[in-house]
């Protein structure tokens, strides 16, 4: 090889590295969605019958298919982020959103204490002691919220606690689900 070619070759590693940095910097500047969307979006709720924490008729998908969009919120008294989420749920409630709570693997007395402390934001609370609904929904943890439209079809999945700056997003999803 001519000496000039060799000299040029020496810069190749640097050029390759610059390309990698540019690529990665691009990825940083435009972060892509890291949350894996549920496959259940656009599908009706799976069938379930859960006992109500307040007593009365058990919760079934029919309760959510009354023509209005609902927010279905999976939570638990033992879950620290759920307590952090409570103020946002109260604000959503104040905005007129019917929120259905499902307590995952909870004990009745803990649940009652939790609802007293956080100022119960729920229109109804059902108990899912075996996490059956959670499994059926493909949910990976608590808290997790689903926007359900008036016909009981899942429209949006929110993984993790709803933050103060995400209330507008949730309200928009509920409007879109009307």
């Amino acid at each position: 090889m001519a000496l000039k070619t060799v000299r040029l070759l020496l810069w190749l590693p640097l050029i390759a590295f610059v390309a990698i940095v540019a690529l990665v910097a691009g990825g940083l500047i435009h972060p892509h969605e890291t949350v894996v969307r549920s496959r259940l979006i656009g599908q009706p709720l799976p069938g379930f019958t859960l006992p109500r924490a307040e007593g009365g008729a058990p919760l079934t998908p029919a309760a959510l298919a009354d023509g209005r969009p609902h927010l279905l919120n999976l939570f638990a008294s033992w879950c620290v982020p759920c307590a952090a989420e409570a103020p946002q749920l109260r604000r959503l409630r104040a905005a007129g959103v019917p929120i259905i709570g499902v307590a995952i693997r909870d004990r009745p007395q803990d649940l009652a204490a939790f609802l007293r402390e956080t100022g119960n934001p729920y229109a109804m609370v059902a108990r899912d002691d075996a996490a059956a609904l959670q499994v059926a929904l493909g949910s990976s943890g608590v808290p997790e919220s689903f926007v359900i439209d008036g016909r009981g079809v899942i429209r949006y999945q929110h993984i993790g606690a709803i933050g103060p700056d995400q209330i507008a997003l949730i309200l928009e999803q509920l409007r879109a689900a009307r």
Partner: protein
Amino acid sequence: MIAEAGLIALWIAASFAALQTVLGFAGLRAPAPPRLLGGISLIQAVATLAAFAALLLLFARTDLSVRLVAAESASTLPLLYRVAGAWGNHEGSMLLWVTILAVSGAAVALFERRLAAATLAATIGAQGLIALGFFGFLLFASNPFARLDPAAPAGLGFNPLLQDPGLAFHPPTLYVGYVGLSVAFSFAVGALLARDVGPAFARAMRPWVLGAWTFLTLGITAGSYWAYYELGWGGWWFWDPTENASLMPWLAATALLHSVTVLATRDGLRAWTVMLAVVAFSMSMVGTFLVRSGILTSVHAFALDPRRGGVILLLLAFYVGGALALFATRIATVQAGAQFRPVSREGALVANNLLLSALLGVVLIGTLYPLAAEALTGEKLSVGPPYFNATAGPLALLLVATMAAGPLMRWRREEARALARRLVVPGLVLAAALLASFWAAPDLSILPRLGLTLAAGLAVASVAPLAGRRLRRTPLFTWGMVLAHLGCAVSLAGMASESGFSAETLAAARPGETLHVGPFAVRFDAVDPVAGPNWTAVRATLAATRGGAGAALRLAPEQRTFDTPPRQTSESAIATLWDGQLYTVLGERVPDGRWQVRLWWKPFVTLIWAGGALIALGGVLALIGRARPRRRPAPEREGFAPWR
């Protein structure tokens, strides 16, 4: 007060790193007294250690007024995981990284006596500059000692997947490896700056490369075994970005390890060795960055905000880009080293280096491809095991062939005939293994069959350099090489056996039913609830008998539910037998009351990790052999022992 003391220690360490950088680089013209540089780097190391000790103490006490502790730990955790939690998060792991870095820098400054004064000073300066960047990052962008006011009422907990003794010690092992590579990088920068690339530089760098490579080997082996038993998917390598992040520097370090030997003993491959030193460290930074920045999705997902990711990227660009530019401008002024014929020990090592580099390229491309595809087409996709297996598999098998032949060659030039004579026995073993495999397993697919036969040939070729030698007088580093190559053969046999002979059963079963997998009958006895310190679980009781006779093996796989943070993990139960492992996982409950049960029979799968341990042991022996003073002056005499 502990947190503030830690922060002050960090500032002290940073200012001494700055001093070390300035004095080190100034030493290119007028070297400072070695004692002065040694003292400065020692103070830096002690201050960093103090900062890390402060963080450990805060985590051990679960001081919830510290933001990091509140976010990453909980007082309900067992002590081991409270302490391991200190480095199980972004800030803590960066502090651990820089602690190991500062300690290694001090070791170089205090004990390195083989290098010319200017080269050593520049090396220490480069090491100071690397440390300085990370101190700056910790102090300005990700302070591990930041307070939380008011203090949190409870900690958010520690990722349950990481609550495992293996994982508690896995990151430190890998970090020691990465930092060892950073020392090799500093040596390369120092040698380029001082225009002093030669055997002395290679001998100074070699123990660090050997050490780094040994720790990386251990880290990867342990990580693979952890993924195997903890994630419950029954596999041992998934080509996950996190796995690749540790594999890429390992591949580069393996190539470097071999080329640095050529440079140290034969004064060949000068430019190539410097290049590999830069690449190996770059790969450890690129890999860590990719995983830590959350740019690529991985099971380990250490999400990081883009601002911090940007700072790390700038550091990376500065160090690696600077070193590559230095390489491009300086390496032409480095004199070419000694020449050799293509068929020679050096030639085999060059082939090994090229194959390893190709393998590295293939893994790097596969890891970055999803990112590139998304940037170009906006489409999200992932490159899975099929790509990696198809591309890396054949390259790895070629590599095995050079690994078998290389150590049987002489330095500088080799007679093709003499080499062929030495390859007769391994060749015969290979042929016999191939025939035996057709007789024992006629339906085996091609890659496992090739893997098994090559493993047999490699095993024999690996120990061949010991033939006809007086074993007690054989140098330790020769033993190290033999063991490491033998370890590769053992691992390869395990991989081939696992992929060729595994049996799997997935069934929904009721207690009382019996399932079958491989030679085993597995009775599903019961499912019971159990409680642990910070989790609850359902536990299955299984009784396995081989061929339906003999004493039953008891297995108890679990599904655990952790509270803080809420998460489910499946704890597989594994019975290890002399000829393989019976691997059981309890899955979800099916609505009709049955339970999903997964069973695998994996013949000789343990050889994969036994081989890894053997490779690491080889590294340790070679390291001891290199560190001990030599008794005989010229061990590399021409024509005496070809495998030296």
